[in-house]
């Protein structure tokens, strides 16, 4: 079983994200062999022109989406932390969509069942959004790695400011 510390998910650096939506194309193509943003498991939000970020599943511990499903259609993989959807059980009621704080659960326009990021687990070269992002804004991380990154960038900034003064 993966512990909270080992869980991997995709994080977008909003300083680097330019809102190009290439991740959406890469995702829909990787999973569905078509270009269609409404079939992408990662979506880009542009709030004002200068605030851009891509959002997808954070593989939460005790995920709210799983807890919310009244039909036990959702479960979390003990091995990867991925949310597993039993398409036969899902009737598209949308409780999981409402429960997710990140908008990571989405309704498929054709099957009318929900779908979510699976970290491209069957792709040998890993998540396709990360591979294609031209700004290197997307990375596969654990929460520990994220915390380390934040610390490093804070310290770098601190010393940079010092150097300047």
């Amino acid at each position, binding site marked *: 079983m993966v512990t909270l510390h080992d869980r991997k998910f995709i994080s977008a650096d909003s300083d680097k994200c*330019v*809102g*190009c*939506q*290439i991740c959406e*194309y*890469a995702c829909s*193509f990787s999973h*569905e*062999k*078509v*270009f*269609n*943003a*409404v*079939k992408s498991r990662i979506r880009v*939000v*542009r709030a*004002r*022109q*200068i605030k*851009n970020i891509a959002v997808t599943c954070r593989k939460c511990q005790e995920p709210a989406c799983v807890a919310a499903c009244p039909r036990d259609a959702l479960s979390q993989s003990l091995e990867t932390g991925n949310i597993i959807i039993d398409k036969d059980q899902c009737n598209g009621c949308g409780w999981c969509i409402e429960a997710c704080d990140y908008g990571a659960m989405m309704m498929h*326009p054709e099957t009318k069942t929900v779908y979510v990021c699976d970290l491209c687990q069957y792709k040998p070269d890993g998540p396709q959004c990360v591979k*294609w992002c*031209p*700004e290197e804004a997307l990375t596969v991380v654990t929460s520990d790695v994220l915390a380390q990154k934040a610390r490093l960038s804070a310290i770098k900034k601190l010393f940079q400011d010092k150097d300047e003064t």
Partner: protein
Amino acid sequence: MFGYAGKILYVDLATGKTRTEKLSEETAKKYVGGIGLGMHLWLSNTKTRMDAFSPENPLVLALGPLSGTMFPTGGNGHAFISKSPATGGVAEAVAHGTFGTELKRAGYDAVVMTGKAEKPVYLFIDDDSVKLRDASHIWGRSPGEADDVIRDELGDYYIRVAAIGLAGEKLSKISGILNDKTHVAGRTGLGAVMGSKNLKAIAVRGTCDVAVAKPAEFLDLVQEFHERMKGPAAKKYRTLGSIESLSINNDLTCMPTNNYEMAHFMNADKISGEVLNEHFVIKIIACNSCAMRCEHEAIIREGAYKGTMTRLEYDNVWALGPNCGIDQPNFIIKAAERCYYYGLDATSTGVAISFLMDCHEKGLLSHEQLEGIDPHFGNANALVNLIEKIGKREGIGGILADGVKVAAETIGKNSAELAQHIKGLEVTGYDLRCLKTAALGAAVSFRGADHTRSGVLVLDLKGIVESLKAEVGRGKLVKEFEDVTNLLDSLMICKNAKGTFYGELVDIAKVYSITTGIEVTPEEMAVAGQRIQTLAKLINTRGGLTREDDTLPWKVMNKPVPDDGPAKGSVVTKEELDLLLDDYYQARGWTKQGLPTKTQLKELGLEAYADIVKED
């Protein structure tokens, strides 16, 4: 079909009735998409000459086969085609962003809008459901505000909107159609065409798949173009942005300053790409599908207009800055923001204001006409005030709101000599007196003064040809550049990404074939480029334009470059222009009058339009 959606949507704005027609593979291949398909649809849906503001004038919105795919820049663009109220010929403008992507996913290659709505409306294309909705509550609002209100009331953040501002509503011939907040189909007065139809906005939501013929090869191609975009071909746009041109053009003494009174701006250092990037640019963002991102968002951190945010490019900075003698970044940024707010073409707006300043300095305006504004070159407050007046079509702004050609007719007294336009479209920021290949390109450009129609000015700027010389051979160069540009504008490739197509026709044919599965050769694509140019010529000819309109502004032909430097004294004489035009028409296989022959029309499959050129 692959790449294409295979469907054209027709909307009658008077009745709200809609219908769709199939796009055949034959038509798709023949006209490619974008401006080519748009001009075909405009011509095939009109019969005679008409006023640009008549309800019968179709407003055509067209996409290319790459729209909605992952292909960088090609995925996101769209073109508007109509009859121009500014030139009387073809109205053509393209824009990027995300709007085109969404329209393709809604399942259309083009939308043909005719008629005039009784009251202000907006069109909502929601896949197969197409409806006109009341727009009285957003009439008068800026395009950006309209965008927010529409997405809010339809309850979907991802709906994409193209809208006009107050200027378009008031039929300003220098108004454009804006999408995704900062993207403008700006040139040739398309905003006014939309306004004349009482059409405030087009909102789109699409959920359909877009598929390509050869997915594996397509992805390899996308990867290759991503690499090219990260290389030298797009470095300028990725770093300082197109504003880098300001110092380059100024150093070459070919940056029109004070409405072409000079070709060099003394205070260029105050508004250089370096200065603007260091002190004002806060973030560079991207259009959908683009791997080179070039949209420089600037914010005023202190001083006048603190907090104002807008997009900066060479074009708007030049037009509102050096062209008006203005060196204060805060005012240029505010002026640029106001152009977006009112839905104005910033280039034409800047040239209209520089024209007024020129008229004022030469004493052609009365005290009453000026309404307390003192529009001398360098007056930054006057710049911002005048944009407000143009946007609202108030007082003297009403004289400028239809561009410099119309303004000169109102002002009279030799002011036409100061009106920097070709065919009624205002000039751009490259001094044509010392860039003579570009001068030919601008003279024959079907939409009027514009460097982007051929992009041939790169030959002058880089010294590949002698820029101060007019000689036989330039006609062929302009033709070849135009053909490539026509195709890129039909595939909806962004002009800033043009440099990544270094294989030109070979790259174009390859991208087209892999995407659509319709195998084409570079030679066939070249013919398509010529066909698209011919379509534009037919529209212009029907509009009454002749060889006389393939000309240059008075100052370009009569006022030599005054600044010290290699270009000093340069001007394009009538003899030089005639030599260049003859050479170009010959390269096109056109008559001395610049018209295609009947035989050529037949070869291009355009014989249905032979009656338009029956004069010769």
